[in-house]
């Protein structure tokens, strides 16, 4: 039985509602490892198969975003946090997109 503390919500009262939630830490770890193995094939095996540079970049950006989302949602518990806290890291991400586009384009 999970404790209130385990839910990461402390004394918020949300703890009881989260007690039944099983956190897939091992599955997330295996997914991270598998995606990393896949990433390693992109500049080597996939490139030898004729994958264009732009396609390699698109694939690697997508896999990195997927891995980051897994860590943020499950290991940093954003999935279980109140909605307002989920917006805190999203604000600089929007600024980051503007900055990177401004610098590169």
């Amino acid at each position, binding site marked *: 039985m999970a404790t209130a503390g385990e839910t990461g919500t402390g004394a*918020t009262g949300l703890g009881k509602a989260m007690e039944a939630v099983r956190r897939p830490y091992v599955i997330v770890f295996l997914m991270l490892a598998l995606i990393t193995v896949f990433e390693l094939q992109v500049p080597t095996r996939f490139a030898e198969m004729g994958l264009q540079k732009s396609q390699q970049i698109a694939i690697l950006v997508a896999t990195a975003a997927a891995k980051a989302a897994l*860590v943020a949602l499950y290991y940093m518990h954003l999935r279980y946090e109140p909605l307002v806290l989920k917006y805190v890291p999203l604000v600089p991400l929007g600024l980051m997109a503007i900055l990177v586009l401004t610098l590169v384009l």
Partner: protein
Amino acid sequence: MEDAHANAGEAPIGKGHATSIWPAVVAVGLGLTLGSLITWFPLIAVGLAVFGAGIGGWLLQDARGIRFGREGPTEPGIFRLVSSRKLGMWIFIASEIMFFSAIIGTSLALRARASYWPTPGVDSPLDINLTAVNTFMLITSSFTMVQALKGVQRGNLRLFRGALLATLLLGIAFVSIQVFEYNRLLFVEHLTPWMNPTYLPDKTYLGTFGTAFYMQTGFHGAHVTAGLFGLGYLNVKAWRRKDWFTPQSHEAVELVGLYWHFVDIVWIFLFPIVYLI
């Protein structure tokens, strides 16, 4: 007693916040240190001294068992469901996202304007296989960190201590491999942090490749090293006494964990950008 009140949800909103002066001293020390880099360099000694005093005072206060505020929701308004310390860590992480965005964005801009950039696996001096090992270690350290949190939340002291120690050791291994790689790149490959007019083996023009590489991986490595100090302190407390962290009071473990996972996320982006693309 204070925690009991907090966990019972009886604390009045806005009460029970930290009263320590040391975080402010740390901030002033960091400000002086960074300010010295763009104003008067000898000022860095004063900055580092103030920073060290701040960290020392903070740790001493913590070691005496003085609680900083309380765990649980204390913020009024829209953040009332969030612990004030957790909110502080997330705002810090938000500022760090902007910090790394500037560094990665600048590096991408340098790359976009470069006439030549090495291709991974073809003519790049970077070792993909060695860094892949490092990547797996950092991912594994995130897993062990979350296991440590699970252990303390469930009162499983063995899991908590073992996973926390494993996280620290994996972090040390990551930094050690990075130092090894830096040594090889600097003294064998002659890849420097400044402009590389020539790349010795084949005279290929590398330009700002080294600048971008060392700037991105160096700042990340510095953040990992800072995280190791946090993990080291948690380990000391966890292994010295059984009751420092309990299922009812362990927010420090969660907050250091948040920082550690963030450092992992930065590497998740840096690895393909620096080594694979």
